[in-house]
Each structure stands twice: as C-alpha cells, then as structure tokens.
C-alpha cells in the first residue's frame, strides 16, 4: 500500500532559523511511516494556514497566537537535545493517530 502523506508545519518566531533546523528532524522521524511534507512558517501566520486547512499538525519552537484546531507539539528540545526523545515520541504518536484517521 502506498504511504499516506502528512502535511506538517514547522514553526518559529522568524520563520527562518529554528523552523529550518527542526524540519529535517521531523522528516527523519516520520519518513518510515508516511510521505512527509514540511512547510517552515513564522508563528504569526500559523492560524491563517491552519484555518485554510490541509495541515495535519504543528511542531513549534515559539508560542503560537490564536486558537489552533490541530495538534501543536513544542519542539525546542529538538534543538537542544534535552528531552528530545519524548518530543520525537509525541510526534510519532500524533502522526500515527492522524494516519489512522485517514484510513
């Protein structure tokens, strides 16, 4: 069976540096179970992107303004390495739940 696609938003305060850093981490840890498409984004744009639809979950290094109706995972640990395993587990758990709901 073909792998399903996950559309993920990688978010930081500038949309430039730390979002780019965590993008590859997200791909590396999900590519065995899905086609992963990651879009890097500034936190102030997240609500508009999510409201437009088509995104499955968010991994962020910054607080995000507004109410977001998809899962939001705090990703600073992906940068520092401290607590990284727990974050990766959470990403994989959320991803699997979303993939299961797409069955």
């Amino acid at each position, binding site marked *: 069976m073909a792998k399903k696609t996950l559309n993920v938003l990688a978010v930081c305060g500038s949309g430039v540096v730390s979002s780019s850093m965590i993008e590859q981490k997200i791909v590396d840890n999900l590519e065995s179970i899905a086609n992963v498409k990651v879009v890097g984004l500034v936190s102030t744009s997240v609500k508009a992107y999510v409201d437009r639809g088509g995104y499955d979950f968010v991994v962020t290094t910054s607080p995000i303004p507004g109410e977001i109706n998809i899962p939001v995972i705090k990703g600073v640990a992906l940068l520092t390495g*401290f607590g990284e395993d727990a974050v990766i587990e959470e990403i994989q758990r959320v991803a699997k739940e979303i993939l299961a709901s797409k069955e």
Partner: protein
Amino acid sequence: MGIVEFSQDLVELKIEAKEKETVIKLLSDKLLEKGFVKESFYANVLKREEVFPTGLPTSIPMAICHTESEHVNSSAIAFGTVVEPVAFQEMGTPERNVMAEMVFVIALKDPKDQVPWLQKMMTVFRDDEILRTIRNASDKAEVVNYLNGIFS
C-alpha cells in the same frame, strides 16, 4: 552558497556586558560593518527577541539571536562569548530565563540554502565538549578555525 563561514571579523570573545542588548548590538554591528545585514537588522533582532526569545538551555546556555531575512543582505553568523553570563528569555518558554555564556547572531538570507549547515548547528548545541571549547576560547583565530572545522 551552502556554507556560512565564521571569520575573525565577526567574532568577539569575553564581551563585558550586563544586558543582552549590549551583546546583540556589538555582534549586529560587526555584521552591519561588513555589509551582511541592513541598518534595520539590530532593532528587529531585539524586537524578535522580546516576542520570540532564543535563549537555549543547553549544557552551557546560549542564545541564537536572529530575525526575518528581509533585514539580511547575505548570510553570515557572528559569535561572541561573555565574561559574565547574560540573561536571555528561553525559547518557547519566555517566562523562564537562561543565563547565556555564548551568543550566536545569525543572519540568513535563504534558509533553504543552509539547511545542512543548520543541521550541524544542532550537533554543536548538544555536544558538551564543543560547547566548552568555544566558551573557553581566548584566541579569535583559534575559535574561528575550530568552528569552521566543525561546520566544514
């Protein structure tokens, strides 16, 4: 394209500073002098830092200050260490402070070009020995060589 080189012009060791603004200004001015960033860079790094702080609770705490690419002419990175740790708010948890012992001021024009380089940055953050080596550096040429060696 892909590689951002460290250079002695963009490094300052053992900065005497009580506040983060002093460190960010000094390093931003180095980037400005060399034409890597626009006049607007410093003010916008500071503004970003207030809203979306970049202090990281790594084994030796640090900050990775940056802002939107519209304030950048071409990619470069400035680096500094401080005599006394300086308070930065923690990334993702602004109500907490980290006492940073080193500061990177990162100017990126197109992060897509620098993704492998940014990935290596993450290697640096989590390697205690690398962090200790650069924090303890007392010679600009040495630390620049060392950093460029890690990132090559």
